[in-house]
């Protein structure tokens, strides 16, 4: 045989060997391997932790939640102290004075004090347009150091969700000023040192990140000494890795998608190695209707109401979600603050849906089976997240019910990012979405009605949108609890009547964890988990 051919083969083999040998994976012994016995959690995540800069939005929220902390914490009993041990609010509601915990240090040893708070808040405010979704960023006038452990925040007008927004995972959390670049954080940072219970110790992009317990944590060192975030595609790969024990933890991601379907989780639970823990209702999964799309039937209230009646929520909850989520009849469940408002229940009722359409002038065309009005067919596109294990099935169920009353729904599955993009640009008739979670509901979700990036297109096309936006502005600055309640009730009645948010189920976070892991609990936000409270039996 030709010598040159043999040489080429040898060369390729050599190159392959050298390349595999110079792989960083040489240190395989230090690689993450999950095991309950060595007091570690390795969780599967579909996306890398990314840039952990807490003053921007590309990082993974569960990871940022371990490393950084805010002044106050949002709990089921309301706002509680965190880095600030106490605070006072001036009578006019404009000045907040925070007294900081002493002896708190950043992971790099720098002291956490009033100066650090000021530098962080100033850095966020210098990049204010990036943060305009969080209305507090438009109201902060000044952050002043009073003494080593006292800091004062002045607002342009009273703003009642101020503390709730300060408690969020970003942007008002604290990074060591030593990590700043030229006194700023908006152009990148030099390190990721927060004050939180875990320290980021290693990061191999697109592979894994490890977090080790902060032994000097001011609130007591956590029991689980190491947490690894391992990047794995959702579905079969994650399921197999859990079965083998390469990862031992998985949870619902920040888009509300579970990495495994209900059946796979049941199988893991049945093996005895894992337990499934679900949070209480965290959010409402829904279909948002683009009321401002004037050329589409979705612009009409009657069409949206008819669609509402065409959703069989009980079947979705029982058969598609396997009983893990409950049927939702309103935008916010009644356990959300200020949202316990009596509203008409629009149950699954195809006859009612049909008569609503008939009254609105949508006549059934016997030939095609689709209704039409003035030559326009009753046809709409419905977008769902192709990463979600259940949205497609829900969409198909709704599609078939809608077809039986003469509404044609075209289903389109897309990536989460693309769905988010449609919500911003308004290029949709109907799309699957969810409210933002207990810590953000109702104030931030409702605030989002006026934001292009959120639900502006959804709400803009309704008849009373001007009044609605005016009420939203009022509710955010009102300091009178009773008045706020009344305004929220008005707002919720308006969007309910207009049927722009068609609720499906109340969603929750699902955790798959080793069966001997204890104290699994949840925060008020659906994006982070309190790993520092967990421990092995």
């Amino acid at each position: 045989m030709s010598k040159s051919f043999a040489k080429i083969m040898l060369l390729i083999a050599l190159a392959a060997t050298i390349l595999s040998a110079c792989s960083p994976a040489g240190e395989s012994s230090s690689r993450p391997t999950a095991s309950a016995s060595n007091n570690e959690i390795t969780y599967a995540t579909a996306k890398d932790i990314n840039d952990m800069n807490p003053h921007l939005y590309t990082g993974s929220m569960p990871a940022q939640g371990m490393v950084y902390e805010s002044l106050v914490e949002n709990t089921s009993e309301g706002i509680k102290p965190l880095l600030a041990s106490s605070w006072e609010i001036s009578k006019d509601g404009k000045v907040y004075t925070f007294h900081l915990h002493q002896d708190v240090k950043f992971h790099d040893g720098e002291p956490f004090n009033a100066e650090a708070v000021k530098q962080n808040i100033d850095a966020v405010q210098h990049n204010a347009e990036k943060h305009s979704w969080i209305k507090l960023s438009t109201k902060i006038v000044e952050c002043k150091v009073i003494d080593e452990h006292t800091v004062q925040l002045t607002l342009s007008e009273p703003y009642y969700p101020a503390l709730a927004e300060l408690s969020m995972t970003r942007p008002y959390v604290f990074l060591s000023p030593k990590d700043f670049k030229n006194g700023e954080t908006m152009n990148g940072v030099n390190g990721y040192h927060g004050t939180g219970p875990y320290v980021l110790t290693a990061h191999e992009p697109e592979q894994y990140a490890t977090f080790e317990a902060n032994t000097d944590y001011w609130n007591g060192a956590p029991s689980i000494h190491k947490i690894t975030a391992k990047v794995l595609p959702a579905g079969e790969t994650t399921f197999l890795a859990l079965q083998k024990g390469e990862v031992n933890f998985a949870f619902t991601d920040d888009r509300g998608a579970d990495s495994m379907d209900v059946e796979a989780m049941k199988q893991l639970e049945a093996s005895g190695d894992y337990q499934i823990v679900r949070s209480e209702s965290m959010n409402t999964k829904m279909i948002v209707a683009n009321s401002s799309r004037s050329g589409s039937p979705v612009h009409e209230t009657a069409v949206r109401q008819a669609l509402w009646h065409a959703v069989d929520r009980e079947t979705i909850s029982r058969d598609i979600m396997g009983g893990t989520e409950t049927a939702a009849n309103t935008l916010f469940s009644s356990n959300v603050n200020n949202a316990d408002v009596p509203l008409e229940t629009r149950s699954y009722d195809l006859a009612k849906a049909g008569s609503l359409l008939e009254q609105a002038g949508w006549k059934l065309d016997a030939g095609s089976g689709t209704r039409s009005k003035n030559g326009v067919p009753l046809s709409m596109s419905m977008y769902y997240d192709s990463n979600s294990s259940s949205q497609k099935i829900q969409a198909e169920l709704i599609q078939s019910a809608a077809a039986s009353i003469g509404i044609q729904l075209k289903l389109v599955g897309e990536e989460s990012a693309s769905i988010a993009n449609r919500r911003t640009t308004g290029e949709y008739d109907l799309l699957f979405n969810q409210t933002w979670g207990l810590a953000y509901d109702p104030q931030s979700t409702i605030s989002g009605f006026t934001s292009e990036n959120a639900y502006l297109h959804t709400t803009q096309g309704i008849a009373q949108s001007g009044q609605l936006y005016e009420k939203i502005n009022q509710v955010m600055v009102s300091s009178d609890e009773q008045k706020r309640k009344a305004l929220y009730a008005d707002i919720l009645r308006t969007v309910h009547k207009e049927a722009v948010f068609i609720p499906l189920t109340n969603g929750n976070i699902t955790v798959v964890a080793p069966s001997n892991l204890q104290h699994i609990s949840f925060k008020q936000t659906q994006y982070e988990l309190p790993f520092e409270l967990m421990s092995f039996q």
Partner: protein
Amino acid sequence: MGMYIIRRMLLAVPLLWAISLLTFILINLSPMDPAVVVLQAQGVPSITDELIERTQQQLGLDQPFLVRYLNWMLDCLQLDFGNSYITGQSVWALIGPAFLNTLRLTLVSAVSIIAVSVLLGVLCALQAGRVLDKSVRTLAFILTAIPSYGLAALLVWYFSVRLDLLPTSGMDSYRSYILPVLIITISYAGLYFRNVRSSMLSNMNKDYVLYGRASGLPERVITMHILRNSLQVAISIFCMAIPIILGSTVVVENVFAWPGLGSLSIRAILSRDFPVIQAYVLILAVSFVIFNAISDMINAAMNPKLRNGL
């Protein structure tokens, strides 16, 4: 031979230039304004015209098309592909490691594919029409017909979970290579061994074989002659297989959480990260050109007649 290599390399230059222009034009045909993509990726909630204008200036998007193309090409020549719209990191820092990871997988797979294809191809040709030939071809037919993600899931379940022999995913040690390489080998060798087999068979009927036999050459020597002549076609195919595998490991990388080009490109495409997509297309195109040149050179080295064609 030296002259041939130089001429062949020179021929690649205009080709590469055309590819770079095409890549740039195609990306610029996208209806999305890159400035809007950047702002959305950064999670900016309300995108104002002012903000878009400022971002366009920052990205140099306010300049004319040709200026942008020239700047981009000059940067690319220095391996500077710009910054990712999504993470803000330099594209090279993202693509470089991913490319190496995929290249590792590809080269190991290529060796395995070549070894298996040549071995099976020769065996089947020598045994043409007999039980061995038929059963190998049937088995290959069945295996290549199974979608690779299905086969991968099956093998991972059996070897990793059931027998606990190999890792289910990741790139931890040499053991991580076994399953992905096996899957890639099955899907490609199952096709390529047929090329080796049929080219062996057509050579077996040529006159030189008859003369060789008539002159009393031992069978082993004759087989070697046939193999050498048959491999010309195969070498072109194998060389082109390397960039093809480089560009099509998406499924395998996804199933095995392999941090390579396939996963990176899919993420970039879905999030409209134009600089990463541009660099990815360019790198793949360059590898096609390079491997095509290499295959020509190898063939020229093995068959002097071809050297005069250029």
